[in-house]
């Protein structure tokens, strides 16, 4: 069976919520039933067949095509299957995701992977603000899985993050890993200001020295840490340059903080 493909018939003027287009929701529906599904578009609803051209049958692989940058909540809460976006994606991609895989050819908007529980998200372009964060007002962000962004990420990536890994090949905006409870963020490019602000636990692994280290982080010296090769090995399937950097990241300079919070987090900076 070929992948179930949704091709937008034209550009969208309003945001379209496609959270119901996952394997979990579609596995028991035939194509006719799928075509008549009602999708929230802005402040109204529209039938799926009026918005998308539907091809293929296999909901275990779902493909979005066309001007997809206004599709919100792609893969929300999905537990299995694969979703491919052959362009940009909107906000809340992979929100509450529990398993499976999402691959995006382009860039995504804000709150990607927010409160994600497990699974894999691969972004070939850039990601907006609050990647892997908690929803506004919530205190528990991403709690498992891996998100790999080949481009840059916006501000507050990993805000309130609890577990799992963000692997960022490009640069990061301000407040990277702010208020982290645990988990790992690996960054190949340059980080913004207020790195690790108020982080309680967790690890920020940086391939490049940051512009600044907050005064609430304490210098713990340069060390060879045994868990880093294991961590980098777990990134091997990601096509990230980080996975092959065990030599360069063999020794790291460790800063512990943020002492304005619990103070048991760490910033590890490649030292040679």
């Amino acid at each position, binding site marked *: 069976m070929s992948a179930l493909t949704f091709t937008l018939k034209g550009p969208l003027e309003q945001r379209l919520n496609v959270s119901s287009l996952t394997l979990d929701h579609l596995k028991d529906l035939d194509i006719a039933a799928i075509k008549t599904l009602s999708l929230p578009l802005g402040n109204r609803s529209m039938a799926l067949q009026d918005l998308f051209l539907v091809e293929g049958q296999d909901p275990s692989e779902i493909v979005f095509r066309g001007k997809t940058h206004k599709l919100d909540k792609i893969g929300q809460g999905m537990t299995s299957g694969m979703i491919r976006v052959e362009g940009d994606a909107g906000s809340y991609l992979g929100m509450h995701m529990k398993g499976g895989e999402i691959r995006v050819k382009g860039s995504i908007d804000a709150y990607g992977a927010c409160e994600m529980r497990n699974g894999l998200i691969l972004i070939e372009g850039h990601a907006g603000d609050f990647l892997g964060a908690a929803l506004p007002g919530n205190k528990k962000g991403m709690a*498992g899985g891996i998100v790999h962004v080949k481009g840059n990420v916006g501000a507050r990536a990993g805000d309130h993050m609890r*577990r*799992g890994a963000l692997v960022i090949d490009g640069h990061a905006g301000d407040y990277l890993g702010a208020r982290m409870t*645990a988990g*790992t963020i690996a960054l190949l490019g340059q980080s913004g200001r207020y790195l690790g602000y108020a982080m309680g*636990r967790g*690890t920020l692994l940086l391939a490049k020295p940051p512009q600044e280290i907050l005064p609430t982080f304490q210098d713990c010296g340069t*060390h*060879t*840490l*045994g*868990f880093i*090769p*294991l*961590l980098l*090995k*777990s990134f091997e399937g990601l096509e990230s340059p980080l996975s092959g950097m*065990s030599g360069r990241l063999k020794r790291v300079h460790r800063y512990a903080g943020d002492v304005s919070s619990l103070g*048991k987090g*760490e910033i590890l900076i490649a030292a040679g």
Partner: protein
Amino acid sequence: MIKNGVTIDQTFAEAFPMRATRIIITAHNAKWAMIAATAMTGFATSVIACGCEAGIEREMGPEETPDGRPGVAVLLFAMGGKTLAKQLETRAGQCVLTAPTTALFSGLQEGDPIPLGKNLRFFGDGFQISKKISDRRYWRVPVMDGEFLTEETTGMVSAVGGGNFLILAESQSEALAACEAAIEAMKKIPRVIMPFPGGVVRSGSKVGSKYKALNASTNDAFCPTLKGQTHSELSPEIESVMEIVIDGLTQEDIQKAMRVGMEAVCALGAPAGIRRISAGNYGGKLGPFLFHLQEIMA
């Protein structure tokens, strides 16, 4: 059955069910991984008084270990899960955590999880750090040489303990040489250990004793100095008997190890003073697993 002048008795070794786990110790170099593994498997010859039976399964190259450093695989066996967990924790805490540069990983993913670093982490006094990598949890415990990295749990499986065979020779030195040859060959078999010193036991036991407090006592039927004094199994030319005990993850693993061990003994044969191979047959008192020597060598 006679092979190269060695009579293989029509008898069987009796073995019993155990619980087992495998752990992997890595270190800065192979020397320190081996030092930690040797310490951890010390005083672990018999469950009769040691709590567990443990041994080094094999050395591992950097490409085989989780953290890319040289390592050693260790197997531990005990009569029950609780005892095994306790022994593992005590030994890991005193012999691996303490050994310079070491890290400790699970060597068995299957079976029931038992704590490996789960409780050792408290040595970190609140400075320990948890890392979940690829669905496996690790603990980073700060220690004076850097960090002690340990996996949280390892797997515990049902296993078999007490596979054995006896080597009957014309002299002590010939019995020892045959044992050494057997152990050298058996060390190459995976998933088994020979827990006694150097793999060899000279004080083979029978079940029970004339003293009520003891569960086991000397196997008088195979003691050469008692030939005229007890109901002996030994013919006049036998002057020394030594035993090799094998614990394995499965019955098949033990069979394989027994076969290569007995083949090595038979290769030396009668010209090297080896007269018989027998086994610890306790008439069904010891356990449900029977290893018939002649079937294994057929």
